[in-house]
């Protein structure tokens, strides 16, 4: 008597299935699975973003991660050139000129359309976009970017004038060309209740916003109504990838065209470069320094702080933590920006002998034990370990305390308790904008206990800070900012480390474009040979 084989599918018995699938698997094992390419497909560009979106609305966007995307879908009157400088060029404006220290006139190009049927961009849209930023009812997070902007006078459908209460040197780079100066449609934004976050109601740039999937990606598509030079890609997929290691693997696997990578990966990549790829190590707008709380009893004597300044070998720190890719910093203002200093007052290698002498003059009993707070980021941890080594050589022992970013950001805050009094040394970093004022504004007396954790307070510094922001003469501003950085260094509260770098890896099938601070300029990325 024969037993009927159990059927797992009509006509397929279990035995047959196992036999057939074994054959297929063996065949694949022998011949190898054909390589599947996940690389750049056709007209789509795949780019890494270092974090997910929270808001694309200029009143509430917080980071460059949003700026990367919003700059591709929106227009400003002026935009930054894709040449690695902070120079600007016309964008939505046909003309833009400074009339006097508090008035700037603009004229829009005609025929620039907002998507989703919101019509042509007008001077009234410019007025709406800027005035909502300074409207107290909007409580705009980016309100400070607008400085003393009073209002916008509209003359006709395409032209108008910005009116400032006082001169504001950062008006063009920060307010007009920066993410806060993106022009939105009054009709569209009003229709969604006056503000939005991750679903912009319309846009007018070379790319349009198509979709956003939380923790995954944002998809942009070519704007068919765009009257400027046709964008080179049909779609741009921007992936939210906070972990650079994942991005590096994804790039190697051919799934990304352009990615910001970590500094420690640059050399291994250069040794074994993925096919058809290049790396560019760009300057970054992120300034790193060692801060000292001058109100902590252990650091009230300026000679102790100066001893620490002289003890730290910044060259060794940069070599170890940035693998020699970054330059030693001469102050918070990076190279290429008004106010950048050619050299710091204290030599990069420091002077351990002088440090010992200062400690001796201060009558400090050695070893001096100090606490050093730091963000628990591998790069910063490496940097403070090298500093610890430098400091130990002069008799200062450091207790390193790594903390997660959210905790670290509160250690110097006065409004959250007395913990700021215990802060002694800390490694801090901050990303600047396109104007030097933003690099130094955090060290004024008004910032004591907010971001000024060093408790550095100088009347001259405060006065210069206000004057420099109101001075439009670049030479005069430069002198003021250089003096401000001297004052910071002379206070003994700061040891400047580096302005860092931003390594970007990309396929040679694209012509990438980056801002002066290393961030990707999506709308400017081209295909090789497609012209500039």
């Amino acid at each position: 008597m024969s037993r009927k084989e159990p059927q797992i599918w009509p006509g397929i018995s279990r035995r047959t299935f196992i036999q057939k699938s074994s054959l297929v698997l063996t065949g694949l094992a022998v011949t190898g699975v054909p390589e599947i390419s996940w690389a750049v497909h056709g007209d789509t560009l795949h780019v890494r973003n270092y974090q997910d979106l929270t808001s694309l609305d200029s009143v509430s966007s917080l980071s460059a991660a949003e700026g990367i995307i919003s700059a591709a879908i929106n227009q400003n009157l002026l935009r930054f050139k894709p040449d690695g400088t902070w120079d600007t060029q016309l964008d939505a404006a046909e003309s833009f000129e400074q009339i006097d220290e508090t008035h700037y006139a603009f004229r829009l190009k005609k025929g620039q359309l907002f998507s989703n049927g919101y019509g042509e961009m007008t001077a009234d849209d410019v007025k709406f976009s800027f005035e909502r930023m300074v409207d107290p009812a909007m409580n705009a997070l980016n309100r400070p970017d607008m400085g003393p902007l009073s209002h916008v006078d509209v003359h006709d459908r395409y032209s108008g004038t910005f009116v400032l209460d006082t001169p504001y040197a950062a008006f063009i780079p920060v307010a007009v060309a920066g993410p806060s100066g993106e022009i939105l449609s009054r009709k569209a934004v009003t229709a969604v209740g006056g503000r939005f976050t991750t679903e912009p109601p319309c846009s007018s740039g070379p790319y349009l916003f198509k979709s956003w999937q939380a923790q995954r990606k944002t998809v942009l598509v070519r704007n068919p109504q765009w009257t400027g030079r046709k964008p080179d890609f049909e779609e741009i997929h921007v992936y939210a990838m906070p972990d650079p290691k994942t991005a590096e693997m994804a790039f190697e696997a051919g799934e990304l065209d352009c990615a910001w990578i970590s500094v420690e990966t640059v050399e291994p990549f250069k040794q074994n470069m993925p096919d058809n790829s290049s790396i560019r190590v760009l300057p970054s707008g992120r300034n790193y320094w060692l801060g000292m709380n001058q109100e902590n009893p252990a650091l009230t004597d300026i000679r102790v702080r100066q001893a620490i300044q002289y003890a730290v070998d910044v060259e060794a720190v940069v070599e170890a933590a940035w693998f020699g890719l970054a330059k030693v910093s001469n102050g918070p203002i990076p190279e290429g920006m008004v106010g950048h200093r050619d050299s710091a007052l204290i030599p990069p290698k420091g002077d351990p002998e002088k440090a010992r002498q200062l400690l001796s003059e201060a009558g400090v009993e050695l070893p001096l034990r100090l606490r050093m707070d730091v963000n628990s980021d591998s790069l910063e941890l490496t940097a403070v370990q090298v500093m610890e080594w430098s400091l130990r050589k002069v008799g200062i022992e450091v207790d390193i305390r790594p903390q997660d970013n959210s905790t670290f950001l509160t250690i110097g805050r006065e409004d959250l308790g007395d913990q700021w009094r215990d802060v002694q040394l800390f490694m801090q970093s901050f990303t600047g904008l396109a104007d030097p004022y933003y690099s130094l504004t955090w060290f004024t007396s008004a910032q004591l206990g907010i971001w000024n954790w060093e408790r550095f307070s100088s009347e001259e510094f405060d006065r210069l800070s206000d004057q420099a922001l109101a001075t439009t003469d670049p030479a005069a501003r430069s002198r003021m900012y250089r003096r401000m950085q001297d004052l910071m260094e002379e206070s003994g509260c700061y040891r400047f480390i580096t302005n860092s770098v931003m390594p970007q890896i990309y396929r040679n099938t694209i012509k990438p474009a980056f801002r002066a601070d290393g961030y990707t300029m999506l709308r400017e990325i081209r295909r090789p040979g497609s012209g500039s």
Partner: protein
Amino acid sequence: MLRFIVRRGLLSLLILFLAVSLMFGMIHMVPGDPATVMLGPKATPEMKAEFSRRLGLDQPLAVQLGRFYAGLARGDLGEDPFTNREVTVIVWEQLPYTLVLVLVAIGGASLLGIPLGCFSAIRRNSLLDRLTAVMSVAFIAIPSFVVALYLLLWLAVKWRWFPAMGAGESGNLADQAHHLVLPAIALGLGWVGYIARMVRASMLEVMEENHIRTARAFGLPERTVIVHYALRIAMLPTVTILGMGIGTMLSGALFAEIVFSRPGIGKLLYEAVLTRNYPIVMGSVLVTTGFFVLSTLASDIINAMLDPRLRERQGSGE
């Protein structure tokens, strides 16, 4: 059986309440100011104060917890202060990715681990048994993230058989399944060894039982004895472990979600903790804890269904 389910259900609710309340307290005790992190450097003290008021952070912890449960009773977990989107929507968007990953990982591990454990027990001390033992220990011992990295390096970067990141295109099941392979292997591989060892040990114990000898004495085919009599009993501890495994994997999926850049509840929770996004943290914790409790409850019920003695003991309140 109904009485058993009701008793276990109530106990599960109590566990959920305690776990979520504990987590609520712990999160708020961790230092860090959400307003500073979320609003960035440009925010004025007034903006930060208003933000804290909006999130209810200016209230005592007990009041905040009470509000959380009151909202929960209405099905409202609040809003993400970053994007102003509802937390329930955000969590439910991410949950399927993690659930599918966990189910595929544990399902795959069971499909491999149970037969391996069975064969090892039946062919005790054979070459297959020894090989399974070595492989099981190796699978358990290798950290999952190491497995994930090597899978990525070989199968995604070197040979490009599988994608290295993401979860596939929405609506494209084949693409999503393809994106699931590597993370599921990374997450489930350790469980293959664990399940195999557990099934083997249970089987060896059960095979010595009197009722198995009786079944054999009655002349039942060996296959029937093993599958219908031995394995059914031997599966009891494995089902319990699988129930807990699903719960553990829900939070353990984090590494796979980060390494493979997949969306999911683990990554959502991780990033929310880093940014002190309390509404998202609580929503994610509630859901993961809920699923942990649910999967444990389900394994208890399955155990009771498989083992009438347990059902009767629980039913009679013993």
